[in-house]
């Protein structure tokens, strides 16, 4: 069974006090990444995480600086301290299952400008698109610009994922 290593709760409260104006969802994402990395390292019996590569999907429109900052503060302690982090933005690319057309984020952004203001999520310092939280809802907002179908597919750049981990002492 995987050994779960919990990140102490008070630590992230403290981080959020330090950067009260940061986009808050990025900090939640950083916390979730750290939890996932610790779980993976624990399940493999690793002593340390040496390197962590994260792919960030363009569709979520994540503030990379805020995410990097959150990670920097959370990646401490004997297992995570000193881990090299690289963040790579994966360009979002879309295709239509109906007519096989393809388009990119610039077209998606054009369509997302039409999202009704009342659907924007209220953060303390900003208003965010629902896709910032739930990228899998893309088809509710983005359609094929050529045939109008909602049967679209995000081929790349949708979500945040841990692309690779380099572990020391893993089984």
């Amino acid at each position: 069974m995987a050994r779960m290593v919990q990140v102490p709760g008070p630590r992230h409260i403290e981080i959020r006090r330090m950067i009260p104006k940061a986009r808050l969802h990025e900090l939640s994402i950083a916390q979730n990444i750290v939890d996932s990395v610790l779980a993976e390292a624990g399940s493999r019996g690793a002593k340390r995480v040496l390197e962590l590569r994260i792919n960030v999907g363009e569709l979520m429109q994540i503030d990379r600086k805020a995410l990097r900052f959150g990670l920097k503060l959370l990646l401490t302690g004997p297992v995570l301290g000193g881990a090299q982090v690289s963040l790579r933005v994966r360009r979002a690319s879309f295709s239509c299952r109906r007519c096989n057309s393809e388009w990119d984020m610039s077209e998606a952004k054009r369509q997302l400008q039409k999202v009704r203001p009342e659907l924007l999520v209220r953060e303390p310092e900003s208003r965010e698109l629902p896709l910032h939280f739930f990228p899998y809802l893309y088809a509710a907002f983005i359609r094929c610009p050529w045939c109008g179908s909602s049967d679209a597919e995000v081929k790349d750049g949708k979500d945040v994922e841990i692309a690779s981990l380099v572990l020391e002492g893993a089984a």
Partner: protein
Amino acid sequence: MSRPNPLGPAAAARRLQGVGEVILVGSGKGGVGKSTVACCLSLELRRNGFSTGLLDLDFHGASVPEYLSLRPPVSSDKDGLRPKTRGGLKVMSVGLFTGDNPVPMRGPDKQELTAQIFGLTNWGHLDFLVVDLPPSMGDELLTALNVFGEKASLLLVTTPSPASTEVVSRLRRLADREGVPILGAVLNMAYVGVGRKKVFPFGRRSAKTLESEIGSRLCAVVPLEPTVADRSLVEVLESRGEFAASIAGLAKQVRSALRLLPATRAGAKAPR
């Protein structure tokens, strides 16, 4: 190595620590009143003083916001998305992000979204999380069983129609195979009160027959309540009608069934 998605599962696992019991409300069949039962049960549990949440997993046909008169926008703070509240009940639904937009979505995307919408919501401590399942036995149900694990139990909802009980019995069998405890079955839309008479629009069948067909005991018989269309569910539950009384009885039965769960759960995990 595998690529663990850091958003949904990690967040969901952390949130689940603050939840006592997860009550999945399902039938496998559409149009039997799952959402009404889920809304009423969760409101009633809240009225009984329990900290209660309601999660709408019917992504394509989210109706919980409509039943509870909840509208976008949703707010977010340092602890996650803030659930909307109605009568102290905490509610989260995709409908609060998509409004009246159609929500087309394929299987794998639904799996990710199921974990995310639960995990990114700041439920705080909950005695009960009631989950309104969509029709069918697809991605939402299977993912919910994974996400909620041993805290999950299932409340079945059926009408008296054989077409409904037949599908509900399939869901019951699936739950048995997966080791998910069954809290009982709600016979919904059982009758309509017309003056002092009862009319049975979906047929009149004995409890014994229905229990035999479904393979589970009936824990509540809920009438059709025509005034639901004109009044809020909160108002209907505060009235003294038969509908309100049946929901009060349902909440009591569910709590009783949950108290017996440790033994049931152990039994459910016995070799098939």
